[in-house]
């Protein structure tokens, strides 16, 4: 196995009396599409929040991304290292168009100083023109149409909003993408459409994707590797097909794969 892009070492998080994560350790290999599944409250989103820098795990734990320790870094610093994410509940700027939202995702790629924007400088207009091309590229890849792009997101169907959020997260070409329940609240047709988009994203780049979802369809179609969390513990991990057949996992899910 090649050098992992992300590794967790003894990650524990306690919220009051509840142990949300309990000594979780595993690695994610570069280029994998990695699913993390588990019942509600298993600690999946908490794990994402530890990576992003919103939650600081208990002392002794380490999260290493590309040989750099993540714990202790602020959220925007983690982003700058090349980690991007989406949210369980859509976190788009609702009164803006899709294009404006995705442009905001290019913040780190626009290298000019914020005050340079005041002057009609060449490097500012060049950077903004480049940004417009990046948006075109990512929207072609994720199959987001121009009319959707120029509509206020609060008037778009949920499925389109989810795609715009993914576009906003990946437009700056991060190395690692964290997707928190991308199919949450979507109907079957929208989920299928989103899977299509995510597959073309996965196949077009070196991007490593980590997906949390209850929707087993999405996870099984998209992911080659799987980890299962239950009550804050890692109970199984490995090739997706093997993990799905694991008796311990079946016990936790108790027929849930079909219900999803």
């Amino acid at each position, binding site marked *: 196995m090649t050098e992992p892009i992300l590794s967790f070492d003894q990650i524990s998080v306690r919220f009051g009396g509840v142990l949300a994560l309990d000594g979780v350790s595993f690695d994610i290999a570069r280029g994998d599409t990695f699913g993390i599944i588990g019942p509600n409250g298993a600690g999946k*989103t908490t794990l994402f*929040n530890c990576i*992003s820098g*919103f939650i600081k795990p208990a002392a002794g734990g380490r999260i290493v991304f590309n040989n750099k320790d993540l714990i202790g870094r*602020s*959220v*925007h610093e*983690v*982003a*700058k290292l090349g980690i*991007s*994410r989406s*949210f*369980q*509940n*859509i*976190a*788009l*700027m*609702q*009164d*803006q168009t899709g294009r*404006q939202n995705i*442009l*905001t*995702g290019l*913040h*780190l790629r*626009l290298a*000019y100083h*914020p*005050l340079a*924007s*005041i*002057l*009609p400088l060449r490097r*500012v*207009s060049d950077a*903004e023109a480049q940004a417009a091309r990046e948006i075109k590229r990512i929207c072609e890849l994720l199959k987001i149409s121009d*009319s*959707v792009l*120029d*509509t206020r997101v*609060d*008037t*778009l*169907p*949920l*499925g*389109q*909003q989810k795609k715009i959020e993914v576009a*906003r*997260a990946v437009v*700056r070409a991060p190395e690692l993408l964290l997707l928190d329940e991308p199919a949450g*609240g*979507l*109907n079957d047709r*929208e989920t299928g459409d989103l899977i299509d988009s995510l597959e073309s994203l996965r196949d077009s780049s070196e991007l490593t994707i980590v997906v949390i979802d209850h929707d087993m369809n999405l996870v099984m179609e998209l992911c080659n590797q799987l980890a299962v969390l239950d009550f804050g513990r890692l109970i199984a991990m490995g090739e997706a097909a093997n993990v799905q057949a694991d008796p311990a996992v079946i016990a936790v899910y108790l027929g849930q794969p079909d219900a999803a």
Partner: protein
Amino acid sequence: MRALLHRTKIPLSMVLAMAGAVLVASEANSYYLYVINLCMINAIAAVGLVILSGVAGQISLGTAALLAIGSYSTAIMMVHLGLGFLPAAVLSAFVTTVIGTILAGPALRLTGLHVAIVTLAFGIIVVQLIGKGGKLTGGMSGMTLPPVTILGWAIDNEWRRFIAILIPFVLVTAGSIRFLRLKPGRALRALREREVAAQTLGINSSAYKILAFAYASFLGGVSGALYAGLKGYISVDDFTLWNSIYFFVMIALGGMTSIIGGVAGAFLVTAAPEFLRGFQEASQAVFGVLLFVIVVFLPGGIVAPFAGLRRRLSTRQTRATAPNTDEGQSGDPPR
């Protein structure tokens, strides 16, 4: 021309308004010219407040204090250090920026109304310090400035003052429109609406809030320096809490998040006493009613109808109906 406007991201409407202002100014008597000058000076500070309070969401009741610092440092440098108006004004703008940016410190730890109270306290402290400033600030009796010359050009009538104020006014307005349309404006809007998500896009929340304070402070300083130059005499009565509130009224009338709106609001509020002079003692009451009507019927400010019109003209109708959006609105991002 069109290409130049497009490249510099300056709206045509602004150029037309500017041309109109010059035209009106050329016909105006010196009193009206004085009012227009005051409008532009207030508009500069209002633009700063649009960015700080409207866009960055940091409610500031300290605008008058920033103006006071800009005015008084200009006056002090001219009277006590013998500096010319231009160097004094430029240095004052930087002094105001430094002092105003210190406010970002407590504001980073606080939210909403508490930020407003900190800036309010700042306003009280500044005015008190100036009032107790003895010979340096002239205390409660104010300061008189020496005659203003800029690069050897005596600014000794309203028309020349108009030119001297128009230039920074145009630069500030055009620069700020670009500032809001490009990266920093997008970052500030994202932070106000979705701070959590914005940070995961790499936007440094503290750095941008500090930038917003610095920006508004700089413009407050510029505005104050020009005010001192225009009036020739300043006193603490020019920089009360009422003045700060009026700046807030300006941007609220204009539309909070729009530079053009802030400018329009500043012109309206500053010139209102002149328009309403015909109502004599009822003029204050008429102004109150006017405010009431605008805020109730145009909660998006006086620019809102124009923005709506432009949207309707420029974007085609989308077929996207929204059967599922209810679910999407159900929650905020974690924390």
